[in-house]
């Protein structure tokens, strides 16, 4: 899978207006391949069910996560090492993937996406007829 950043496709208009103020982080991923599928594992701490979205559009897999709003300003900050940010990352899929059957699971801030291979891409054994 190749990494991809897709430019905004919208025609015309003010480009500045399409930009968001929010910061995005590129989440770390593991991608491995088995005989029948590709598995993408992605760390997105601070994102709940409602905040995660995984989509495929024109062969581009998009992972997006919106972090929870935490009411941090209610208390005084003593020490800070991280800031929760939104996540965004895209990958280009090849024809090998059956895009209809992609599934995803979120558990403890880790997103697991299973991308099954299309039937035609799976390894096949050809029966050989032996005559005589």
């Amino acid at each position, binding site marked *: 899978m190749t990494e991809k950043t897709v430019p905004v496709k919208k025609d015309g208009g003010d480009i500045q207006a399409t930009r968001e103020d929010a910061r*995005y982080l590129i989440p770390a991923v593991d991608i491995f391949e088995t005989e029948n599928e590709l598995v993408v594992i992605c760390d997105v701490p601070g994102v709940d069910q409602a905040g995660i979205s995984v989509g495929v559009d024109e062969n581009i897999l998009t992972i997006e996560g919106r972090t929870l709003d*935490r009411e941090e300003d209610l208390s005084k900050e003593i020490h800070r090492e991280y800031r929760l940010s939104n996540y965004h990352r895209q990958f280009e899929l090849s024809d090998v993937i059956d895009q209809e059957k992609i599934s995803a699971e979120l558990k403890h801030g880790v997103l697991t996406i299973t991308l099954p291979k299309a039937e035609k891409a799976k390894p096949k054994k050809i029966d050989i007829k032996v005559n005589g």
Partner: protein
Amino acid sequence: MFNRSNLAREMDALRRSLDQVFDTVPFVRPPVSRFAFLPGLAARQYPLINIFDDENRVYVECLAPGLDPEELSVTVENNKLTIRGEKNGKPKAVAPEAYHRSERAAGKFIRSMDIGCDIDPDKITAEYKHGLLLITLGKSEKSKPRRIQIIAGQ
């Protein structure tokens, strides 16, 4: 020629605009930043923590996705908070050569920090939610802020 306050303002404006560049332009940032939650070499820097407090409590939040809450341990001793656990490694069934990308690190970690005030050991709660470990430590009575009654003299 610059006068002093003008120069300071110019410098500040420059710093702001540079900050803005680093905040908004995605390709200036490294592809996987410090937020990659990698224990790796900096095991003592894992998990990353934020600490907040108010009058009655201290809140410690840790960025630690993908842990098994059963294996996570939080202890408090002499106002020193210690978090230890293990981030699960890669599934054993998968051969190393089957990996296309491997950016997430794994391993055991331990991190302790001194909480700067007296903690009531009976008022500690910890919750693991969406990859964040949220620890709430109740302050003991003597470290809570106290309002001093002022006696008005005649």
